[in-house]
């Protein structure tokens, strides 16, 4: 299982980026698109977690909610309110997509924090697919809803006529850069935090080899604890940021006029 990705840990010499290796679960052949890897496994666990939370959580429908039901209701209400506030009331019919994005990302991020687990969202391949889908969805929706008026998004009518062509070029570039920044923000944040924890984990066993470990080992263990707390915060905030930017892009698609 995940131990294969961390096989080199036993020798106390490991590379901080080793945790992001994609390895097949069964055997060690080449990775094809259909190969079941640790990415597949941890994505499946995330999906099972989402189903457990939302389906089992909403099964009771008690007036006084149980713990599971309150968490499910809080999550639902949180995303619903965010979409309503940022995008507006008319965007509520795209709520299922936004909710799916948020809850999948938050589960993947949080599961990645478990020891020996694999962070699926630390791979640009995963977040890139999510971001490109958002980009295509928003662009197509904008053209379907507004027709050619969608292009008003690039023509800043509040600016003086002379600078409008220049602004149009800048707006166009910033529009097409969206999927890049959208995906790399999430992947980069997840990857960087986990790599830092691993670097400190590499310093921790130094007490076994040298006297300086009396100082280094407690400091690095404290640092791991602090980074881990920060990572829990980051895992949530990055899911939130990804979702809220999706809401902002949706708003641009529904109301393109500047």
């Amino acid at each position, binding site marked *: 299982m995940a131990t294969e990705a961390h096989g080199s840990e036993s020798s106390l010499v490991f590379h901080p980026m080793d945790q992001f290796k994609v390895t097949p679960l069964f055997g060690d052949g080449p990775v094809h698109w259909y190969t079941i890897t640790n990415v597949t496994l941890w994505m499946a666990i995330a999906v099972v977690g989402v189903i457990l939370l939302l389906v089992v959580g909403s099964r009771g429908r008690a007036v006084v909610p149980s713990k599971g039901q309150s968490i499910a209701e809080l999550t639902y209400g949180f995303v619903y309110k965010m979409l309503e506030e940022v995008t507006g009331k008319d965007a509520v019919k795209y709520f299922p997509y936004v909710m799916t994005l948020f809850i999948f990302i938050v589960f993947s991020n949080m599961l990645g924090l478990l020891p020996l687990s694999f962070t699926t969202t630390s791979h640009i391949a995963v977040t890139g697919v999510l971001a490109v889908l958002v980009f295509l969805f928003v662009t197509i929706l904008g053209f379907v809803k507004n027709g050619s008026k969608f292009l008003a998004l690039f023509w800043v009518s509040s600016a003086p006529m002379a600078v409008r062509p220049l602004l149009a070029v800048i707006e166009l570039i910033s529009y097409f*850069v969206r999927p890049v*920044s959208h995906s790399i*923000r999430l992947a*980069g944040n997840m990857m960087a935090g986990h790599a830092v924890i691993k670097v400190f984990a590499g310093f921790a066993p130094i007490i076994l080899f040298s006297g300086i470990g009396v100082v280094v080992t407690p400091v690095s263990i404290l640092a791991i604890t602090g980074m881990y707390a920060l990572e829990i915060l980051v895992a949530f905030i990055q899911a939130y*940021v990804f979702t*809220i*930017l999706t809401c902002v892009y949706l708003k641009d698609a529904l109301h393109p006029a500047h």
Partner: protein
Amino acid sequence: MEGNIAELGKYIGVGLTAIGMGGAAMGVGNVAGNYLSGALRNPSAAASQTATLFIGMAFAEALGIFSFLVALLLMFAV
């Protein structure tokens, strides 16, 4: 210690692109600091602006992410 000069330039370049991320850190700090000073002046309006805060942070951070992307490309693609 002889090696090839292209490798040396590559790693110096990766180091230099990391400065760009420092710029993003300043930007994000600026957004958060200004939000806090505004929120302390008018706490009742603060809660409604947290979404704007995170959007502003995300946009400021995006430019740091581009330098991170350049660093990654230099390290692994060039």
